[in-house]
């Protein structure tokens, strides 16, 4: 295992004054967010509010136009930072799974282990099988993504992310592309992950899951955080009118 990044106390992830523009269009208008170790932060909000963009700023899939992103106290926007190394500590799970279609499930999981973490093929394979076991797919190791259901593909994608031993995992609408009957399996894995103490930031519309599992719920609209608090506080007594409005539209 690689050494943890320096500064292990304090928030594991800190966003400060994040702004992001695409051309003239400003998606994020100054966002501050700090995520503590072992915390599950749930980001909700109407579509177009900048949730996914914010999440993608955390590992620099998007470069913030302005602001600071700190992981374990270290500014990851700095030029001197080896972003590829930082990214092994921050996992990301995508809405559309993004498995590599030309590789088997196991090869998907082991690619970064071999290429980035520098594991031998044998070691990577062993870890890969462990991870597939963890998501209940050890018997699908040799299957190609096209031979797996959406739910299975997302489980492989989660295994791929966990294989690198990240300290924090970002979930970008992990269940939005799934048939309703497949959502439960993914949420079960996320719940198990949470119980194991993983720090997680989740953008999702699974409000029931947010209600039961989130330590903190963040409500975003129009590129800013309008309010945040415990799931109980946000869902039962939201202070902001926009939050109430948004939650009301979900309770049809």
């Amino acid at each position, binding site marked *: 295992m690689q050494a943890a990044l320096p500064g292990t106390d304090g928030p594991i992830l800190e966003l400060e004054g994040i702004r992001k523009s695409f051309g003239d269009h400003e998606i994020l208008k100054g966002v501050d967010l700090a995520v503590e170790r072992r915390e599950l932060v749930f980001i909700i909000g109407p579509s177009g509010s900048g949730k996914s963009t914010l999440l993608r700023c955390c590992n620099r899939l998007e470069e913030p136009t302005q602001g600071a992103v700190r992981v374990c106290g270290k500014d990851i926007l700095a030029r001197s930072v080896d972003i590829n190394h930082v990214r092994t500590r921050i996992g990301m799970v995508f809405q559309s799974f993004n498995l590599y279609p*030309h590789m088997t499930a196991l090869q998907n999981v082991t690619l970064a282990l071999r*290429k980035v973490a520098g594991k031998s093929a044998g070691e990577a394979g062993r870890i890969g099988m462990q991870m597939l076991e963890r998501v209940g797919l050890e018997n699908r190791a040799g299957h190609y993504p096209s031979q797996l259901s959406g739910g299975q593909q997302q489980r492989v994608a989660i295994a791929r992310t966990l294989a690198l031993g990240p300290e924090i995992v970002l979930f970008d609408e992990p269940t939005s592309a799934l048939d309703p009957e497949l959502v439960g399996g993914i949420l079960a894995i996320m719940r198990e992950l949470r119980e194991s103490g993983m720090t997680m930031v989740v953008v999702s519309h699974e409000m029931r899951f947010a209600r039961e599992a989130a330590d903190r719920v963040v409500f975003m609209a129009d590129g800013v955080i309008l309010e945040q608090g415990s799931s109980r506080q946000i869902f039962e007594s939201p202070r902001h009118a926009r939050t109430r409005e948004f939650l009301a539209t979900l309770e049809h």
Partner: protein
Amino acid sequence: MSEILFNFLNPAIVKAYWPALLEGLWVTAMLAFAVVCSGLAAGLALTCLRSLRILPVNFVIVALVDILRALPPLVVIIVVYFGLPFAGIRMSGFAASWLVLAAILAAFSEELFWAGVQAVPRGQWEAARASGLSFGQTMACVILPQALRMTVPPLTSRVIATIKNTALASTVAVPELLARASSALSESGNTTPLTMAAVGYLLILYPLVYYSRRLERRYAWKNK
């Protein structure tokens, strides 16, 4: 019927000229091999360079590729072989043909590889980069394997056309297959050497076509 056989499949002519044509076939095969290997390698390198999306660099690549695709190879070969010596650059007919045909194949294949790279969904880049893979690793392990599979069918056509274009080297005194066949033709006054040359090209190209079909079938992972 017998006249056709006499003119196109004359055993006596075959017997007299097959050693010369075999030599020509060898030269054609070598030229084709050199052109295809270096042309495709250069095309792939240009595609990787273009994928870095450095604006001025891409401008140059696109301009170069467009010009090379528009130029007629025969003219360029003649200019390079007969014109460059005036600028003090002298090369053999083989080298001139190799250089020109490889550069043109590089231009065409760059376009094809680039189209393949662009057809790979953005999410593939994101997943790979988010797991810590560098640009080069992402390109080599994730993007190109997918892009190349899409590129095989159009690339095969382009490679075949390029190999046929090696016949243009006969204009700059390269003793390749067509050059040998032409001189045999004028020497014997019989068209059988042309038939023999056609068979020669078939010998080179058919295995290529056959192999690329197999490659396509093996790479059909999407429909598994």
